[in-house]
Every structure is written in C-alpha cells, then in structure tokens.
C-alpha cells in the first residue's frame, strides 16, 4: 500500500446524501478479477449518458455534462467533498479502488458507511469526517471559487484552506500510523502469529466443534 502524508489538491463537490457503492461502481464492472482499472467507470451511470459495460472504450462514450465530475473546472480533482452516509450499501472494495484509480486520495463527508470507510484505509486513501456545518462551509467555498484547493495534512490531522482557515479532524491512531507509513496490515498481523496460534489452541480446546 502506498503511504499518505500530505496533499494539496483540487476539490470537487458531490452534493448528494447516501451515495451508495452501487453508484460509485456499478455491478457489471465487478466481474473483473483485477484490482485496478476501475477509474474510468467510477460513477458510471451518472457520468455517462449511455450504458457502460466492461471492456468498452470509455473515451468514445457520451458524457453527461451536468454531472459535477465532468465539469471542466473540476478536472484533476483529488479531494472529493460529499454528504452524509457516503459509501453505504455493498461492501465491494471496487468502490475505493475506482475512486483511487480516478485520482481521489481524500474524501471529506459528515459521515461514512462503516465498511466503505474501513476499505479506504486499505488503499492509501484518507476518509475524513467533519461536522455537517464544516462540510457545508466547504461546499459553499468550493462552489464559489473556481480552482478551490485544500491542504490535507494527516500528521497534523488538519485541513487548511487557501485563506488559512484550519479544520482539525480525528483519525484512529493505528490507521494513521499504517497510512503514514504505507504499512501492509497482513505483515503487521503476522508479527502476532504466536499469539494467534496460542489463541487458536485454547479456542479449539473450548469449542472443538469449530475445528471439525
């Protein structure tokens, strides 16, 4: 996993609540057995006017000019600003894969669905929870000023606007450590393999039917 430390990035505002993972990456793209290449199909049903299928040449498809990600001023955005309960629904990790492949490294929202939130950290992306009021402020500022950027500093747990306003955010200490250092969870857990073996032996003694 790649590390995340700091980012200066263009912000795109996606002004919808309860954006689900079916919307982030529709089911037909889940047939892939790879974990890359989902970016061109992120938000496929909102982004294009035709029906997308795996293997299509997306550069020739009709785009939906009304969808915010398609607006010229938001091209190259790496910070997604969203509303509450972002990433609800299916556990598909293809959703963070698609967002990451599109170019997003940070998602800011008043709340996230649990599984999606967790999946982001496994892919070097930082989901940030701010209060609904602070998110509202960022929506207004983003929409008001073309080229609106934010600085996100994970180590300081702070988002800074170009005018110098700062929003502090919480992040779980373990997840922060993993993200800052680009650490692979499996490698870390394997450091506890003796403890796992000890637990397993005890567990088997207590509930042998689990090991039939």
């Amino acid at each position: 996993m790649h590390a995340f430390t700091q980012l200066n990035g263009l912000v795109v505002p996606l002004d919808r609540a309860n954006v689900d993972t079916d919307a982030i990456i529709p089911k037909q793209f889940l047939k892939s057995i790879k974990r890359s290449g989902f970016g061109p199909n992120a938000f496929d049903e909102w982004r294009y006017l035709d029906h997308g299928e795996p293997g299509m040449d997306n550069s020739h498809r009709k785009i939906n000019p009304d969808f915010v990600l398609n607006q010229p001023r938001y091209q190259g955005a790496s910070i997604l600003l969203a509303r509450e309960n972002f990433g609800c629904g299916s556990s598909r990790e293809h959703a963070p894969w698609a967002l990451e492949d599109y170019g997003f490294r940070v998602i800011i929202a008043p709340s996230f669905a649990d599984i999606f939130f967790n999946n982001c950290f496994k892919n070097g992306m930082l989901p940030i929870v701010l209060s609904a009021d602070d998110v509202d402020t960022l929506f207004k500022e983003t929409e008001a000023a073309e080229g609106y950027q934010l600085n996100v500093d994970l180590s300081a747990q702070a988002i800074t606007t170009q005018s110098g306003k700062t929003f502090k955010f919480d992040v779980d200490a373990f997840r922060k450590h993993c993200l800052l250092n680009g650490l692979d969870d499996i490698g870390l857990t394997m450091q506890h393999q003796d403890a796992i073996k000890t637990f397993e032996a005890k567990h088997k003694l207590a509930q042998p039917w689990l090991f039939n």
Partner: protein
Amino acid sequence: MSAKTLYDKLFDSHVVTEENGTALIYIDRHLVHEVTSPQAFEGLRLAGRKPWRKDSIVATADHNTPTNGWEKGLDGIADPISRIQIETLDSNIKEFGAKAYFPFMDKGQGIVHVMGPEQGATLPGMTVVCGDSHTSTHGAFGALAHGIGTSEVEHVMATQCLVQKKSKSMLVRVDGKLGGGVTAKDVALAIIGKIGTAGGTGYAIEFGGSVIRAFSMEGRMTLCNMAIEAGARAGMVAVDDATINYVKGRPYAPKAEQWDAAVSYWRTLVSDDDAQFDATVVLNGDDIQPQVTWGTSPEMVVGINGVVPDPAKEEDATKKGSMERALQYMGLEANTPMSAINIDKVFIGSCTNSRIEDLRAAANVAKGKKIATNVKLALVVPGSGLVKAQAEAEGLDQVFKDAGFEWREPGCSMCLAMNADRLEPGERCASTSNRNFEGRQGLGGRTHLVSPEMAAAAAIAGHFVDVRTFATK
C-alpha cells in the same frame, strides 16, 4: 463480573490481542464467493502465502451464475467475463483448498447467506465473515457476522484474524405481536424507516423483544440480513430453542457428544438481564403494516396504506433534495397512494427472502390465481439448490408456474443484476430484495422493496395491494 451484552460475549471471546482499543479478533468461518475473492487469492499468490486455516473456508458461486440454461453447463453463461470469474473461483479453491465448496450447478450451490446456515456451516458463537455486506444475516444464529472488503478477505485468509475496533451496541426491541400478513421483512423496513440508513452506523445491533422471539430462523435471517441497510455491519439475535432446533442435524453441525457440549455453551449466548446498551430503539409490532419503499434508499418506506411523501413538506434541505431526486428517478408523484402504483416485473428471491418459508408464503398468496396482464415477468429464484429441491417436493414450483411465474435456478439473480436477470430502463419492480438504489436491478430500473407475500400479491393485482385484505378475496 459486569453484565455483558450478546455482542460483548461474542467479541470478547474472540480477542487475540488488543492495544489502544484496536483488537485482532479470531475468525471461525470464512464464507467466500466469486466476486470479492479473486483479488484476495491473487494477493496470497503474489506474496507466496497460504490460507492460515483452509478448513474455515466454505465457498460457493452465486452472484454471476445464470438462473436458466443450466442444461448447457458452463456454456450457458452467456457473458464471458462472468464465466471467467466463476472458473477463477473453481481454480482458486482447487489451489488453496476449503472445508466445503459448492460450485456452479452443484446441488448445494446457492446464495452464500442461504447456503451457510442450511449446511450448518454457520453456528452460534462463531465469528463469521464474507466479502459481502449481507453477511450480517448469520447473526440470526447468535453469531458475530459481518461483511468485509477484499483486502480483509485476503487478511483473514492469511492470518485467520481481522483488525477490529469494538462497535457500540444497540438494542432494537420489537414488542407486542405482528398482525397477519406482516412479516420479518416488514419489521426490517419499519426499523430502517424509523432509524434511517445511517441509524445503525458504528453499532452492532441486537434484535430482541416478543416479535423477534416468535420469528422462525428464516425470519430472523431476513431481519439480520437488513441490519446493514440500517448502517450496522452486524445484526444478531440471542440463541434460543428455535436456533438450536434449526442447527441440529445439519451437515456441518456438531454431532454426538460434541453436540451436547456445544448446546450448553450456545445457551449462554444471550445478553445478561442487566446488560447496558449504548442505544435502545423500541417499536410496537402491533403498529407495523406491510411496508413498500417508494424511493431510492431503503429508509424511503411507508405502509401499504400510505402515500408517496411530499418533498414540499420536508424542511431539511439535503433530505428534500434527496426526495425530489428519488421521485424523479422513480417516476412518481407526491401523494400518490402506494396501492395505485402499477408494476412491470416481480422478483421473489435474494439473500433476504429466498428461503423455503418465503417461497411457501408467496405461493400461498399466488395459489389458484394468475399474474396480471401488465406484469411482463414474475421471477421466483430459490436461494439454493436445497431450497429449490424442497420447494419442488412440496409442489410450490407448480403453484408458481400455474400462476404465470417463472421458476428459476438458484443464485443472487435480479437482486443486483450481475447475471442476465435485470430491469430495463424505466421498468418498475416489486422486489423481495434488500436495496432499491438507483440502477441496482438494472440501469434506470425502479425497485420497490416488499415482503414475499406482498410481491406475490402485487404480481396478481398488477399493482401494490394490501396482502392482509387481498388474501381473503
């Protein structure tokens, strides 16, 4: 020792290590399907790792599998990419191993959340994970069960553990008694309507109260299945006689002297009387009507006697915007009575409502009647090969076929439309599945979530109808 909730007991008994609130918990059962596993197996392969305990793995193919054309075997899978994914699961299980595997067309194949319990692969007291959000279903057995992403699938395969922070606990108690024609699905939708799709975020929900105690295991599975639609990764129900009677004699359930030891442990899997929950929500079962969703989120739901809500009456701007967008997508006008909404298709199936009890209930409504002429397709997709065989032994397939329904092979089918079963743009469906998101059942498709009885009644009437009065006509 302080009083513990069921969730406390399940979580605490699986902690391997804990540091600053982040725990490694041991996983007893890992259910695997073809969509969220290929990248995990590939990860193991690239790192030269093997599964820590392959006997924890139980696998099946369900999401991509076609529900007809089985006589052609793998060649019946029209989409070559779907076929590759199914064949990839075959080869991965062959390479890495599993306790049990029910491949495409095996008689035990089925939706992973139907197959696990019916095989006895899900047991009380277990930690159960699967790369699928509806893993919450298995909590019906007094198990701690939740969906995980593919990186975590790989993590569990490699280490038998999951990195977890303990959730908060919520008790959802449904008191009183349900009226006739009101089901576990209606209770699930009523709860989501009350607390919202993010109401359970950060919580593990225990469902309790007289209504839940009276549910069969099928009903409890339907309810726990939709815990994720309330935002909770895990839903659960305490163990009682219904749990133990269901598990007894299943292929992978403990036998002989192990059975008695298991049962005496399972009997402890209830919340202590004085256990404290972080939140409690109470509903009265007597007040719950058959539910129908009207929008594009499961929380957008009303009773069958209600009307499509009016966004003009909503004060919260974000909610109002969501309602307006939902009505536009759904092609509905505010204040339309739910019973005046005509449908084009019917889907009876999915990990929420495709078990034998669901099919019996739907067949009971459809018996001796015909689907309405405006209904283009009414699909019944059993949850597994075993459910299908049982239904056929009871003659339910014939009841459905006589009424004009199509009787299909098992799989996830039109719940998420990864196979060929789907809605066309603008088509409206009465569906027993779990998600009414935009495009979920097909691009532009319009999904209304209902119980199996309500879906069958809608198929006959051609529009939504109150099954409580319809059934007596």
